[in-house]
């Protein structure tokens, strides 16, 4: 029973950690493709709107972010907020890996050090019981 709670929570946090950064990346990409935004006249804004939402990238990004928030909600139904929130910081590892392998960015040693500290922190949090409360009414 307890291990199943852990497994479900890990799985959901895993989805958050993967879907969140990919969603943000896709949305950033979609916004960059549109180029600089002119706010005036208003018809220009409509043009930008159509350009952004006419592409597939933004919808893929939105789908990822929906997957993120749904997994977040489901994870919170199982585990403490003070467990899920810091554990989801594992996404920084994903962001760095995405940066290196997908975008071909270089990651500084200090950045890697930060990632190592985050991993250490998450492993401490993993050692605590995921839920310390009963369901509220």
């Amino acid at each position, binding site marked *: 029973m307890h291990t199943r709670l852990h497994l479900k929570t890990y799985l959901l946090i895993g989805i958050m950690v993967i879907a969140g950064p990919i969603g943000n990346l896709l949305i950033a990409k979609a916004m960059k493709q549109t180029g600089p935004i002119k706010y005036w006249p208003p018809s220009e804004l409509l043009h930008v709107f159509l350009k952004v939402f006419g592409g597939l990238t933004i919808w893929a990004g939105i789908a990822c972010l929906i997957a993120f928030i749904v997994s977040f909600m*489901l994870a919170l139904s199982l585990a403490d*907020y003070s467990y899920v929130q810091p554990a989801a910081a594992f996404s920084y590892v994903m962001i760095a890996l995405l940066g290196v392998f997908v975008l071909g960015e270089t990651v*500084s040693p200090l950045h890697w*050090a930060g990632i190592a500290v985050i991993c250490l922190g998450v492993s401490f949090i993993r050692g605590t019981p995921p839920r310390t409360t009963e369901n509220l009414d």
Partner: protein
Amino acid sequence: MIIVVGTGGELCLGRAMKQTGELEKFRPGAVLSLLGRALRVKWIWIGVAMMAAAFFSLLLLLSFEDVSFVFPVTALSYLVGALGGIFFLGERVSWQRWVGIALVCVGVTLVVIGK
């Protein structure tokens, strides 16, 4: 403000999900019925509204401030989140969890500085 509102919104979401009850099985039907029940809890809507407000304020802030100025504050959200978990959700944060949260804060700060 963004930290408090954003984290506050997530905490409301946490409260709503604790009220909704836990996910029993990983079946689409079970997931949908849980989400359906969750949408009837008022805290969800408060939470979603606050998260949306924080998201748009962040976008606004990013449009006139540098990213490096804005993001050190993300580390603080873990501290605010833990305090909110304790006082708003009644969670017990053990010393071990505190150590983990502190390490995550340090790590996130290093990541931001290292960029």
